C-alpha cells in the first residue's frame, strides 16, 4: 500500500502515552504550535535534490 503524502496529513496524530498531557506546569510541556507546510512543499523540496549528490558524497571511515 503506497501512502500518498496528502493522505498521511489527514490522519490524526495519535495520543502518545509517553507524552504527558498539557495542564499544570508539572505535567510537562505541550506540543509546539507549527504552521503545517503544504505537502506540495515537500514535493518541491524533493525535486530540488541534486541527483548527483549521492555520487559526490564521500566520507572518511568512522567507528
Amino acid at each position: 500500500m503506497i501512502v500518498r503524502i496528502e493522505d498521511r496529513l489527514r490522519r490524526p496524530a495519535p495520543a502518545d502515552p509517553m507524552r504527558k498531557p498539557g495542564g499544570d506546569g508539572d505535567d510537562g510541556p505541550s506540543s509546539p504550535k507549527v504552521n503545517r507546510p503544504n505537502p506540495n512543499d515537500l514535493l518541491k523540496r524533493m525535486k530540488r535534490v541534486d541527483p548527483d549528490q549521492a555520487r559526490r558524497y564521500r566520507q572518511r571511515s568512522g567507528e
Partner: protein
Amino acid sequence: METIFGIETEYGIFVDGRDPSDLVNEAIHVVQSYPRPAASPWDYRGEDPRRDMRGFRVGHLTHNPDDARYDRPAERPMSMQEERSDRILVNGARLYNDHGHPEYSTPECSALRQLVAHDKAGERIIFDCARRRSASPESAAVTIYKNNSDYHGMSYGCHESYLLPRSVPFEAILAGMLPFFVTRQIYTGAGKVGAEVRPSPIPIFQLSQRGDFFSVETSVDTLHQRPIVNTRDEPHADARLFRRLHVICGDANLSEYATALKVGTTAVCLELLKRDWKPPVTLENPVAAIQNLSRDQSWQWLVNLEGGKTVRATDVQRLYLEAAEKQLGGDADEDTAWVLKEWAVVLQALEHDPLELADRIDWVAKRTLLEQFLKEEGLDWGDEMAQSLDLEYHNIDPDQGLFYGLEQMGAMRRLVTDEEIERAVNHAPDTTRAWVRGEVIRRFPEAVRTASWNKITLEQQGQITILDLNPLAAGLDPELRERLDAIQSLTEWVRLIGALRPDA
C-alpha cells in the same frame, strides 16, 4: 528501568569543492565554530579503547585500509588535542572531531524522553556550527547528514552506551544480546538505497544503513571488521563496580520514536540480563543474519537458529518482549511501560503491514516517501536520484532535509517538544553526573583545566584538584543536587563531591 545511557553520533559532512582528504580539517572547523562557552581540552588519561571485556588488551586496533588513501600529510603536524578539538559543553555533552566527522556525544541520561531531547539537541548544535562555518569567508557551504553510509564503502557510527553492573558476565551479554541486536533493525533501521559492500545485481532498499558493515560477532574493533557486539571495556566509571556496553551496530535515527524504541528496548533487554535471564535461542550465523535481514526485499525477515529451525525476526524479538512483560510488566516505571506497549504495537504492525509505521520508523518513513516520489516521476530504485533522496532524508538542515519536511507536515510522531530540545541544548540532565559537569563549566569556567566523563581537573590559586565524578556514575541524588545548586563556592562543591563514597 534503572540504567544510565547515552548516544554518540558521528555526523557526515559535505563541503562544496572539498574531497575526503579535506574532511578532517573541515570537521575541525565546524567544531571550532561552536559559539558558546565550553571547556577544553578533553582529558584522555585513563581511557583505553584497546581493553577488551574478555579480560585482555589488544596491541592495536584495526584500521580501514581503504580509508588510509585519504590521509594527507598535515601542513603543520597537529597534536591529538588540536585534531580532536574537544569542547565540553554546559549541557554536559561532548563535541569534537572524530577522524573527519563532527561527533556529538550526549550527556549521560536516565530517561528516554531526556535522551531523545539531548540527541536532538546535538542535531541543533551541530547544524548551528555548520551554519556558522558556512557563513565564514574562507568556507564553502557545509552540509551535515545524520546517517551512517556514504554509498562508496565507508561507514561511520551512531553508538549507544549503557551502564551495567560489573557482575553481569560478558558471556551473558554476548549470548543475551546477539540475537536481539541482529533482529532489532526491523524497527531501528534507518533504511538505505542500494548496497556497496556486497553489491546487489538488482536495485534494493535495505532496512539498515549499517547492516552490510558487520563482519564478525565480537571484537574490540570499531573502524574495520566491525563486530555486532563490541567488546571495548572502558566504563568511564569505577571499573570494579561497572561496565559500559558500547553498542555500535545501530543506525542513526532521525525519528524521535525510533530513537526511544531503540534505546528503550535495549535497556529493557539488559534489565533482563541483570536478572539472569537468557534467551532460549541462538542464531546459526549472526553475521550472515544481520546482513541478510537488512537486504531482504520480501520482508519475511527469516533467521536460521542453531539446531536447524527457521523463524521470523519478529519471533526472536517476541521472546525478549514476552520475558520483559513477565518480569518487568508488573511494576513497570513510565519508560518501561511505554517500551513494552510500543514494542508490541510495532511487532504486530511489522508482521501484518509494516507501512503502517511510516509515522514513526525511519526506514518505513523514508521508503514510503521515496517510493511515492519515484513512481510519480517515472523513476525506479536504481536511478541515481533514489540514493540522493535517501541522503537528503538525513540532511539535518530543517529547511532542506526530507525527514524534517515530513516532521514539519505533522507526518511523524514526536515524543519531545522543541522547547524541551532547546532546554537540552543549554542544560544537562539533572538526574545524572552530567549536571555536575555542565554546571561546573557554566559557573566556574575559569577554574576548569580539563574534563572528561568521570573527572574534572580544576585549578584554583595555583592548586590543582581533581573532581572525581565516579561516585555519581549511577545517577545524581536530587538532595545532593539541591545542596550543590545552592552553593556559590567551587571549594564547597569540591568538598561535598569529594566526600562521596565510591558506591554513592
